[in-house]
């Protein structure tokens, strides 16, 4: 027997899935706009952020309604409260993607500083993190979520490496400062995306294992 409540929970999951696929798409397009120096595409990413903002509000409203009307317990309670947190993290990822897009747009008006290698690599890792964490959410695979958390370290490493490399560019040639700073901030945007994907991964582990694993990376530097 399927309960009406189960249908409402399924709808909630669907909305989150839609939001995450739009988020992932924004990140992908922002990076594409950067690599291909496509100012029009960058503008589109920035404009699409409104849709994510609206979805976040809608998902939160759904969750509050379900909390009030269904008084969920146990796994249902975890699903609904985590859905609210996941939507917040997705919305923030969307904001970071907009940031990347705006900087990509500025960079497209300037001559190329250097061929981009590490930033697209970071971007790929981040997109996979978002995709995997949502798979972990939908298919109830907390172990996959744990792998996502591991990968955040790669993103952090690449970010540090990029900051060093771009600093040396600026020291050697002050004419590169504007562009190098923009790229540094893009790397920083990606690093933040990795952090939000990690948050979602922790939320997914809590949802399925009822274990709070936040703030437990004692092994990290």
């Amino acid at each position, binding site marked *: 027997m399927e309960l009406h409540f189960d249908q409402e929970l399924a709808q909630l999951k669907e909305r989150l899935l839609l939001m995450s696929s739009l988020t992932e798409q924004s990140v992908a397009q922002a990076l594409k706009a950067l690599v291909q120096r496509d100012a029009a595409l960058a503008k589109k990413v920035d404009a699409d952020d409104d849709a994510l903002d609206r979805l976040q509000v809608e998902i939160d409203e759904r969750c509050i309604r379900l909390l009030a009307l269904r008084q969920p317990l*146990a796994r249902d309670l975890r699903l609904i409260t985590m859905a609210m947190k996941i939507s917040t993290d997705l919305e923030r990822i969307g904001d970071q993607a907009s940031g990347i897009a705006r900087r990509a747009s500025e960079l497209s008006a300037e001559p190329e500083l250097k061929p981009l290698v590490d930033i697209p690599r970071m971007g790929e890792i981040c997109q996979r993190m978002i995709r995997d964490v949502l798979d972990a959410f939908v298919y109830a695979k907390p172990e996959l979520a744990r792998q996502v958390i591991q990968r955040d370290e790669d993103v952090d490493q690449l970010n540090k490496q990029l900051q060093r490399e771009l600093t040396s560019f600026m020291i050697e040639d002050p004419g590169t400062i504007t562009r190098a700073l923009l790229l540094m901030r893009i790397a920083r945007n990606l690093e933040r995306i990795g952090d939000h994907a990690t948050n979602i991964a922790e939320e997914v582990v809590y949802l399925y294992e009822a274990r709070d694993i936040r703030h437990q990376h004692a092994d990290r530097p």
Partner: protein
Amino acid sequence: MDKPNIQPVLQIRRLNFWYGAKQALFDVNLDIAANCTTALIGPSGCGKSTLLRCLNRMNDLNDAQRIEGTITMHGMDIRAPEVDVIELRKRVGMVFQKSNPFPKSIFENVAYGLRIQGAKKNHLEEKVEASLRRAALWEEVKDRLHDSALALSGGQQQRLCIARTIAVEPDVVLMDEPCSALDPTATAKIEELIQDLKRYYTIIIVTHNMQQATRCSDFTAFFYLGRLVEFDTTDNIFTNPANKQTEDYITGRFG
């Protein structure tokens, strides 16, 4: 809160119970912590009321019953032949699903048990007032103590029954779905009362209302088909139950 490491008032060990040929409880082991509220939950016919009625030997009234196992209260076997059942029921009071005041005045309802105990008149009035105050009913009835209890509203009658139960200073108060016949306001008052009363008494409540169990209990025991399936802090049972049957039941997906 951790599992009850608080001194248990009642210890139930390997309790089996039969109504004629039908076994209603299977090997139940449970400790009831002092000055806490323990909720017994589970679908109808799971044995929770049967267990409750074992605790003050209400089931003795049923000839076809058979019971095995031990129930100790502060270490004393409540089923020992030398136990005075009347005395036991004074120490383990009970509040029922439907309020059942005596067809007497409000005052007499509360004074009834005290009179049997031979309380003196001055003392009697004092105790009646104190009990009504503890049951959060005093302010509503102090000017009409000698009116019939049957004129009170359902919620007031139930609080009167609680006052009557606590007047004789029990250790344990058993409540069998005490709010099932009450509206939400009256229910909220009883639930508040339960939280106040556990300072003085140990409370065991049978409820079908999950939210009620979450709101007023410290520990929750889930029963199914006469077996204790899971027992833990209410916090754990309702956020992260260990057993799938428990989770299915509390989230309304049973069967």
